[in-house]
């Protein structure tokens, strides 16, 4: 069973257990956001919606939106833009990038995987390029609310592991809610449909099993020409975007 709360709902008298998504007033803990209560040692509210707030150490998928020597300005699906310094791209000190030639390395609309190395008081965000993850080739990028990322990964990665196996796709989930999928067209379609299903039902229990069943039955139906996409699910899902 899950419990939906709205801002201002009373959660506990025990201030020491107040976690994310809560606030304390008058020695009591209240919900700060509209979401589901997660009550373990800490009481947390996992919001249904929200904008990604960058944290140091997060791995994110970013999109280059501007080149401003010596930085690339990167959109990381957050209210704040991040920046990637030129020196992140060249290997050590062998060559310097000439002014005006930055676009030959990374151009506008290119996607990168990067780690947030620093956030200063002015909310300037520095990135380090993670060269081991290349988002090359053809694939899909979908965006879900960042709050659903832990659910998509599941306990000890159970959900995402199952998803990768059953869909035959390469799936990379970043902290900011962006997901890179690569595989056969049909497989990618299934994978993104299922991710949307997980996102809309993130707060329900027994989801991993339900998703596994769904994927199995979906596969067998596809063979019989009864392939029916969950169109309603898609309509309900607002943050969905495909480049």
């Amino acid at each position, binding site marked *: 069973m899950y419990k939906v709360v*709205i*801002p*201002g709902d009373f959660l506990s008298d025990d201030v020491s257990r107040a976690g994310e998504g809560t606030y304390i007033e008058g020695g009591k803990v209240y919900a700060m*956001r509209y979401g589901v209560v997660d009550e373990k040692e800490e009481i947390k509210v996992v919001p249904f919606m*929200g*904008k990604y707030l960058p944290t140091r150490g997060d791995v994110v998928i970013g999109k280059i939106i501007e080149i401003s020597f010596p930085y690339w300005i990167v959109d990381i699906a957050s*209210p704040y833009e991040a920046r990637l310094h030129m020196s992140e791209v060249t290997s050590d000190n062998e060559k310097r990038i000439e002014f005006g030639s930055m676009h030959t390395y990374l151009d506008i609309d290119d996607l990168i995987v990067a780690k947030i190395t620093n956030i200063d*008081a002015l909310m300037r965000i520095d990135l380090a390029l993670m060269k081991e993850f290349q988002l090359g080739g053809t694939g899909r990028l979908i965006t879900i609310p960042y709050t659903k990322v832990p659910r998509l990964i599941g306990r000890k990665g159970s959900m995402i592991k199952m998803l990768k196996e059953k869909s035959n796709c390469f799936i990379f989930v970043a902290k900011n809610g962006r997901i890179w999928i690569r595989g056969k067209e049909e497989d990618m379609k299934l994978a993104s449909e299922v991710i949307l299903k997980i996102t809309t039902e993130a*707060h329900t229990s027994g989801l991993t099993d339900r998703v596994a069943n769904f994927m199995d039955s979906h596969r067998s139906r596809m063979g019989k020409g009864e392939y029916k996409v969950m169109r309603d699910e898609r309509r309900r899902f607002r943050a969905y975007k495909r480049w």
Partner: protein
Amino acid sequence: MKEEGLELIKGGKRLDGRSFDELRQIRIEVGVLKRADGSCYFELGDNKVIAAVYGPREMHPRHAQDAKMAVLKYRYNMAPFSVDERKRPGPDRRSVEISKVSREALEPVIIKEYYPKTEIDVYVEILQSDAGTRTAGINAASVALADAGIPMKDLVSSVAVGKIDGEIVLDLNAVEDNYGEADMPVAMIARRNAITAIQMDGCMTRSEFEKGLKMAMNACQKIYELQRTALIERYSEM
């Protein structure tokens, strides 16, 4: 002015059959707009209002950013077809004032420090108007803000009281508003009994004011329950 012989109260009932402390029919729907971060459709009798929330997002113009907190923007706008006589589109003196007042009614509950240097946009569109649109707008905006996942301390609920034919009544409709003696919209944090906005035009005595305020505060509790139910039920249906 009031036509000769128009009675706003007949036999202890109002023109639309309501008793003095009765609200109009309320309908709330959450998440009606696909592209907004949060949205709410709110009906209060013949008022039809839609609120959309975008953000927190990057603030423009940059010089207006606040380094410590998010900036709340609120736009109250009446559709040209929302009233009997076509309203000239665009902001006017009245809607600029209502936008400011409504924004200040909501500001106390929003935890703006959470997203510094950003802006939160609230757009309230009045699709059909029958007096009390600013209160309907605040109710809708409050639900839409919660739906957008904005960190908040509580919800804000709002309703108007007024005086017609010498009686204090709740939630005036257009006829009562036009021909009545006073109109007083109230916005409050229902659970804490804290008033975040109050306005009045017309005249009331002190005891009438107190009676009206009490009436409005009780009604806000009811509206709060409806807002709450609408939000909770959205995720309980599955």
